[in-house]
């Protein structure tokens, strides 16, 4: 329900006090009677609408339907309702009785237009009617209203531009094959071009004509439409036209227009045009800064501040010299002609890093790149000297100089060797100046990828030397050491640092010369992990340093923990392939290293006074991976993810919880589940907040924002996160209730999503640490149960839910059809085509080559299973006499048996001692696989029940023998699955609950050290060389540092998981 419809519309004043009160109190029977008599007495259609609105609130279907019949009659008889309050009542009543956005144009949109036409001079009515249409995405009638208002009030610029943008939006909302589309598109473009032409024809006249573009927002509308509707060179030509280009926009003080134009030129690769425009802007920028400095100088003189004067004069002299070299117009000349707005906008653009970065790229593509880059550097140096000397501008300049150095073409071999040394020197200089900045490493990342192996080694060496020698500053020392270890990790994960090798493993690590698998040299990973632990452990001794780190806001120990732990995880065998051929990424992982990494991260997490979100997110993912979902949730909750960021950040936590953590859905009856926040958010965002923002954007004449809000609405309505939340919501509730929810077809949040519709994955992985060199294999890939959200995955999951609710649908008990056979025929006529369409859509996705990369193996198998069952339903309902292919049933059966077998393989391969303990680690890491298997059994049972219902009760056409046999097979196999799941659940409860688990986990992580078989050395002479990872880490986070707290939390969380699963309902 939209916000404006959620509340009852206000009644007209002439209703009388009694009706008003009854309306407020919802006393519908009273309103009906009184409205009826008023209607008779006055013949005013308003009271008839009021009566119908009150009837729509009653429970009886006939009363609820009455308003629909009345509105149908109005539409069919083309009756014009002139009173807007009458339409408000119909609107409210229809929405209350289930009107969808699709139905709005036919029933209410058309009436709204008539109201506006009937009241041509009443702006407020037009406005309300317009926003009603906009809120319901009825662009056809919104456009008609906007056009009427534009015609009625030609001097009001708001109505003119509202008409243009609404016409444009309406055109884009039409299907490509709709004949009206090009007509409305052309109309909108012509209108906006005319508005732009009027501005430039009459630019001297002030004020501008009312129908000319006057504001930056209006110019942005022209630009946005032009960008969308003009392609390639035509767009370049348009953006480079001196009359309308970026410098011209700055003349009007339109900074956003200028930046958007520059972005487009860059996107189009129009480097020559971009370079020329940039030069012009920078020349103007220098001049404006000079004027600014001149004015500051004059002001300083006036205020008698001689200390400032000298430096300003010096600067002015230097700048004049520089200007001479660059042929810049004199400041006096410009001072007279430029407006203050132009000055502010230009000075802002020339200090913007985005402009700088692109200017360098454009210069590097010029015929004489060396000269052009030098010139660009001069501009930057000059610009940096102007205005406030913020640290960010110094960083910008240093960064720009580095980029220019790397971009400058080399002319000879001797140049190359010189350049190599200079590049390392340049990077080192940058690090020395900016190592305090948290973004220092990320800023330099682009250069690390350009270094050769020998340069990489040289850089590491220089950093190592500097790191260990700067003993005068412990702070600098720890920062540089951390930087070095992060860099070493970067090179270890960088394919360019591996040389082909003649050995079986295929590569030699360029950094340590070990034989290795590319991008994961074990020797380097071990070395980095050890160094990180050593440095991390040593940190606790230096209280003064810890205090300084707090003041500086630096957290190198968190970085060391992340780098070291990720090395341990890679050594454990997590490789980012999501257990492609197994039930879980942990199925074959080294339990010891995984637990070490988790306990280390947890120790650092609890020692931080200010939590680093990257470490928190890593822990959330790891705890989910090992089945400790309730503990993961408690950490996630500390991140306080706001509703507005759920669409982007929510999947980092909630994805797949519905299958692996049913315990989190136990309290769903109170509306408290991990997904309830999402669904609530989407409802208010789509129905209330975004329409409100749209209204505000229209009101303020912010047209780019109108388009932006529409795009946000689309991305919310067609969001993969939305589908994830819905599907996990259904799965989670189903696991504890056992019932299939019937709302998947009617849910307002998903009913508009049709197969093949574009869905948007807006997941933001930014909160994860960015430490991998290979952007295609980021850290989250090997810490997740499976691949992230995707369009295909979302469609498959939604189609499966729809299939399940279709076949699980049961008529209410009260439903007694007069002709049962006819009712069954009708049911079949609905189910068969619906099923066939769904399975065809699923098949199209499942046939894609890359679909397997978007799903976990259990998901892939589940969707194969659903698809096979779907086809079976279609075949069994359409070929009742001809018999069924037994192969299909055999395939369904064997697929489920194979899934069962694979789940048990890992258990069989564990040692006997592990098996005796129940090997809970691997059981619990396979919870997602068990969850999907449970879903497979459930959908199988529902298919059997459906076919039994449909065919079994049909006396005229009894179920054939082959179908009886098939259904028996399907029921048997689903029973076998449920039997396995019951065993798993019992084993989980039995193994997790008894005491002694804390010691066992400590032993998993630290083996002999934890059980006392191996003594813990307290040798004060312990050196880096004679220590090993286990010992170092045990001493760093072991009992003395209270690692038992983390272990207790894990055990407790596994207990929660076991309790949750013990309440799962298995349908048989």
């Amino acid at each position: 329900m939209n916000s404006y419809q959620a509340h009852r519309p206000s009644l007209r004043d002439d209703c009388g006090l009694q009706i008003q009160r009854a309306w407020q109190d919802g006393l519908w029977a009273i309103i009906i009677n009184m409205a009826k008599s008023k209607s008779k007495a006055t013949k005013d259609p308003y009271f008839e609408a009021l009566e119908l609105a009150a009837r729509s609130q009653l429970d009886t279907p006939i009363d609820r339907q009455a308003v629909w019949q009345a509105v149908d009659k109005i539409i069919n008889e083309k009756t014009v309702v002139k009173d807007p309050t009458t339409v408000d009542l119909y609107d409210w009543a229809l929405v209350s009785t289930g009107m969808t956005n699709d139905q709005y144009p036919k029933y209410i949109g058309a009436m709204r237009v008539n109201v506006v036409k009937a009241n041509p001079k009443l702006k407020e009515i037009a406005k309300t009617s317009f926003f009603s249409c906009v809120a319901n995405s009825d662009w056809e009638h919104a456009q008609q209203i906007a056009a009427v208002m534009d015609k009625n009030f030609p001097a009001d610029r708001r109505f003119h531009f509202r008409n243009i943008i609404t016409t444009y939006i309406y055109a884009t909302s039409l299907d490509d094959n709709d004949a009206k589309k090009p007509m409305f598109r052309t109309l909108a473009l012509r209108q906006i071009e005319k508005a732009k032409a009027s501005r430039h024809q009459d630019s001297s006249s002030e004020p501008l004509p009312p129908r000319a573009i006057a504001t930056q927002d209006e110019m942005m509308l022209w630009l946005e439409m032009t960008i969308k509707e003009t392609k390639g060179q035509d767009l370049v030509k348009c953006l480079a036209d001196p009359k309308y280009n970026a410098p011209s926009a700055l003349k009007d003080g339109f900074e956003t227009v200028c930046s958007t134009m520059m972005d487009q030129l860059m996107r189009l690769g129009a480097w020559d045009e971009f370079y020329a425009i940039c030069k012009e802007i920078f020349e103007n920028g220098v001049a404006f800064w000079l004027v600014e400095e001149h004015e500051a100088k004059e002001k300083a003189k006036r205020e008698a501040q001689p200390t400032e004067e000298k430096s300003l004069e010096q600067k002015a002299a230097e700048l004049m010299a520089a200007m001479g070299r660059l042929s810049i117009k004199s400041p006096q000349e410009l001072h007279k002609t430029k407006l203050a707005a132009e000055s502010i906008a230009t000075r802002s653009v020339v200090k913007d890093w985005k402009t700088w970065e692109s200017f360098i790229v454009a210069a590097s593509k010029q015929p004489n790149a060396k000269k052009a880059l030098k010139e660009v550097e001069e501009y930057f140096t000059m610009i940096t000297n102007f205005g406030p000397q913020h640290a960010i501008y110094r960083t910008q300049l240093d960064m720009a100089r580095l980029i220019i150095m790397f971009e400058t073409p080399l002319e000879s071999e001797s140049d190359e060797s010189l350049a190599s040394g200079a590049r390392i020197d340049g990077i080192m200089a940058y690090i020395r100046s900016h190592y305090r900045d948290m973004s220092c490493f990320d800023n330099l990342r682009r250069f690390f990828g350009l270094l050769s192996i020998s340069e990489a080694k040289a850089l590491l060496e220089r950093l190592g030397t500097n790191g260990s020698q700067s003993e005068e500053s412990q702070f600098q020392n720890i920062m540089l050491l951390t930087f070095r270890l992060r860099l070493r990790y970067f090179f270890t994960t960088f394919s360019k640092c591996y040389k082909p090798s003649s050995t079986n493993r295929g590569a030699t690590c360029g950094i340590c010369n070990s034989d290795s698998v590319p991008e994961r040299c074990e020797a380097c990973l071990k070395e980095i992990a050890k160094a990180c632990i050593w440095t991390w452990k040593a940190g606790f001794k230096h209280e003064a340093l810890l205090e300084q780190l707090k003041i500086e806001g630096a957290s190198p120990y968190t970085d060391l923990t992340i780098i070291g732990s990720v090395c341990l995880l890679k050594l454990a065998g997590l490789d980012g392939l999501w257990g492609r051929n197994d039930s879980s990424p942990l199925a074959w992982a080294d339990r010891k290293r995984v637990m070490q990494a988790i306990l280390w991260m947890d120790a650092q997490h609890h020692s931080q006074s200010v939590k680093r979100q990257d470490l928190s997110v890593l822990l959330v993912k790891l705890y989910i991976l090992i089945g400790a979902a309730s503990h993961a949730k408690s950490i996630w909750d500390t991140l306080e993810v706001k509703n507005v960021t759920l669409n982007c950040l929510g999947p980092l936590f909630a994805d797949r919880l519905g299958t692996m953590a049913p315990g989190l859905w136990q309290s769903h009856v109170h509306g408290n589940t991990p997904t309830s926040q999402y669904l609530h958010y989407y409802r208010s965002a789509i129905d209330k907040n975004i329409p409100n923002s749209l209204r505000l954007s229209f009101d303020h004449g912010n047209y780019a924002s109108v388009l932006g809000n529409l795009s946000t609405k689309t991305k919310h309505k067609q969001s993969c996160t939305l589908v994830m939340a819905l599907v996990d919501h259904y799965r989670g509730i189903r696991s504890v209730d056992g019932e299939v929810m019937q709302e998947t077809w009617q849910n307002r949040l998903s009913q508009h999503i049709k197969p093949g519709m574009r869905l948007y994955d807006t997941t933001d992985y930014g909160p994860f640490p960015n430490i991998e060199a290979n952007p295609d294999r980021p850290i989250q890939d090997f810490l997740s149960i499976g691949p992230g959200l995707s369009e295909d995955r979302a469609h498959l999951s939604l189609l499966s839910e729809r299939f399940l609710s279709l076949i699980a649908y049961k008529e209410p008990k009260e439903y007694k059809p007069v002709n049962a056979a006819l009712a069954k025929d009708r049911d079949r006529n609905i189910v068969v085509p619906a099923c066939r369409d769904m399975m065809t859509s699923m098949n199209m996705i499942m046939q894609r080559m890359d679909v397997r990369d978007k799903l976990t193996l259990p998901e892939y198998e589940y969707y194969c299973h659903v698809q096979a069952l779907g086809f079976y339903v279609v075949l069994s309902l359409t070929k009742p006499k001809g018999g069924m292919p037994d192969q299909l049933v055999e395939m369904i059966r064997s697929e489920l048996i194979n899934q069962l077998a694979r789940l048990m393989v890992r258990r069989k391969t564990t040692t006997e001692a592990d098996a005796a303990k129940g090997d809970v680690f691997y059981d619990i890491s396979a919870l997602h696989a068990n969850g999907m298997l449970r879903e497979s059994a459930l959908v199988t049972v529902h298919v059997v029940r459906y076919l039994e219902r449909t065919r079994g009760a049909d006396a005229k056409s009894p179920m054939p023998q082959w179908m009886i046999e098939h259904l028996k097979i399907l029921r048997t196999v689903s029973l076998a699955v449920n039997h396995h799941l019951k065993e798993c659940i019992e084993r989980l409860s039995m193994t997790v609950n008894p005491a002694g688990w804390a010691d066992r986990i400590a032993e998993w992580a630290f083996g002999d050290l934890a059980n006392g078989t191996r003594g813990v050395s307290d040798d004060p002479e312990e050196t880096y060389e004679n220590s090993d990872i286990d010992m170092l880490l045990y001493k760093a986070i072991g009992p003395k540092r209270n690692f038992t707290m983390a272990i207790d939390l894990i055990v407790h969380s596994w207990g929660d998981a076991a309790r949750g699963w013990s309440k799962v309902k298995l349908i048989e």
Partner: protein
Amino acid sequence: MFQVAEDDRGNIIGYIMGKLESSPDYFRNYEHYLPWHAHITALTVAPEARRMGIGRILSEKLEIAADNGDAWFMDLFVRKSNHRAIRFYESMGYSVFRVVKDYYGENIEDPSAGGEDAYDMRKPMKRDVKHEHIRENGREFEVDPEDVF
């Protein structure tokens, strides 16, 4: 008025929210009446982007908008215990105009206290040539939260 700062990958690393406003007209004769001014509602910079001057750049952008909007001054509220922020604003030319007693519900430094005071800090804009809307001894002027518009 909204302004964001983005890094080179388009991530938002800081933002400022502000507005131009005045007390309602019927307050005109009230001693705490606020004339047309700009108010900083929120200013935040991501931890990894701090100490680079980004907060300052964002504030300056808002000041330009305030001058364009013909504001007398810019103002903001800050916790009395937030020494770092107070130093930052002072370095930008802001000064304490008055102390709003127990403006914040929770006291960060003393949880047992009923609330925490806020400093109402101001910076004069170009329109306030004579600096009539600021005062040197603002820390001595105390008002209650209900006096603040």
